[in-house]
């Protein structure tokens, strides 16, 4: 257990050492999204009776969470592969499960920091525009989706990093898998505004359930039933953990 705690602490300590890169940079992009889409372009738009700015905030929170959880575990492992200290993970007495959970929980911490600071920035924009705040409707669901979302994407990052043989391969996962699924998962729009075919396709996008689950937690409405989203999120977590264990038992902990 102590080994697990130390690995978790180390992973958190690692991203705290490069806070500008790990938290400030995603926060600046979220701020720009809020400014351009929420405040400027979306000022005349309402979705489910809510201002577009309020609609956008939970989407951006989940986008920041997913990206940063993925990047936390993947960049930590890839840099370890590069510097050689990945071999430490193989020779110290840590189980595969301890490695997976410690690294993915640290990913949750980073993802949650980005998500919550995005919420704070969103609150500031919302207050200046509408003189009121967005009050999260279901704080427990909010915690649930942050935790499960962070774990899923933390474990996905871990798998991608173990699989990747080069930096390019890792960035290909981000660019060709995570990014399109995020944008098509309803960060910026409700699937109700999509043509039928795209609406159906959105339903098989796993990220759609995380984004809408978080949106329900903050605003009290979403494109999908929250129970449905929460169960699917949990199924994704179990699946991801199973895959991560499998990957870790097969891959090499050798340096590049």
């Amino acid at each position, binding site marked *: 257990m*102590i*080994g697990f*705690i*130390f*690995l978790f*602490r*180390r992973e958190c*300590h*690692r991203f705290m*050492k*490069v806070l500008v890169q790990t938290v400030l940079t995603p926060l600046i992009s979220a701020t720009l999204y809020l400014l351009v889409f929420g405040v400027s372009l979306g000022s005349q738009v309402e979705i489910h009776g809510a201002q577009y700015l309020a609609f956008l905030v939970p989407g951006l929170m989940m986008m920041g969470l997913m990206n940063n959880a993925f990047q936390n575990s993947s960049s930590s492992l890839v*840099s*370890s592969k590069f*510097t*050689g*200290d990945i*071999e*430490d993970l*193989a*020779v*110290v*007495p*840590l*189980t595969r499960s301890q490695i997976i959970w410690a690294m993915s929980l640290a990913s949750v911490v980073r993802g949650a920091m980005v998500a919550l600071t995005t919420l704070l920035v969103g609150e500031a924009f919302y207050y200046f525009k509408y003189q009121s705040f967005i009050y999260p409707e279901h704080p427990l669901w909010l915690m649930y989706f942050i935790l499960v979302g962070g774990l899923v994407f933390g474990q996905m990052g871990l798998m991608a990093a173990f699989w990747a043989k080069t930096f390019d391969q890792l960035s290909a996962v981000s660019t060709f898998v995570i990014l399109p699924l995020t944008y098509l998962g309803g960060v910026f729009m409700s699937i109700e505004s999509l043509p039928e075919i795209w609406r159906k396709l959105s339903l098989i996008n796993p990220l759609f359930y995380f984004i809408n689950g978080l949106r329900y937690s903050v605003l009290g409405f979403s494109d999908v039933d929250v129970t449905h989203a929460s169960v699917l999120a949990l199924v994704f977590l179990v699946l991801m953990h199973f895959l991560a264990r499998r990957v870790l038992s097969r891959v*090499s*902990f*050798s*340096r590049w």
Partner: protein
Amino acid sequence: MEPLVIDKVTKHYLREGQPAVEAVKGVSFSVRPGEIFGLLGPNGAGKTTLISVITTLEKPTSGDVTIFGHSVLTEPLKTKMSIGVVPQEIVSSGFFNLEELLQYHSGYYGLRHNLPRIRQLLDRMSLTEHKSKIMRQLSGGMRRRMMIAKALVHSPKVLLLDEPTAGVDVALRNQLWDFVRELRAEGVSIVLTTHYLQEAEELCDRVGIINKGELKYVGPTKEIIKDLTQRKVEVQLRSGQVIPLIMSKGDDLGVILKLQNLKLEDIHDLNIEEGTLEDAFVKVLSL
């Protein structure tokens, strides 16, 4: 119980479209408590692969390794607690300073409060003044010493040193060997791979010579030298003449002198030069 037993370990690497590479072929030997065992061999002989199998970095294709009776295949957590490893290639962890690295590494072994040991190791490795630096800010030799400190942070009973002195200057190398001798005196069993055969000769109680994945010889260092090398004897006669002679294992000097028609009263001095581990090593590889 033997600290380390290598039992018929074989390791094959499969490469797509190519025949399997047999890096280690049925190697067996054991390491005794408090001994320095030198694992010697040319580049690509299979030394590092064998160390990777012991540390669980690689799974053997067949065979097993036990550390104090625990198998690396079935009880890896127990075996990992007992071993420390200094890998051949230098690690350059980028985020943490030396003290932080050693604290986290201690934590992985369940050691929450290990600062006294960490400070002792930093001091022993002459790294105390650099404890707040990150690895990238250190020279190659310092990094290697840091890796040794990391391997010892949990006071392992078996220490694997894979080329620990590559790139370390002479003074520090001697300091390191003194430390290795101290560890041996404390009962730590040490497996050492090195290309400095003279140092291996001075340090190692026993050696194993591996070539192309096969263990060619295992035995006490002194014995291998005696068995496989020839002694050079220079007989200086009272007349000033010097006669060079070669003695193999089991040869009787008296008989040789007699064969050379040399009488004891004609001999002014004898100079006997023992063979070296390097000679024995070359001989084993040529067999």
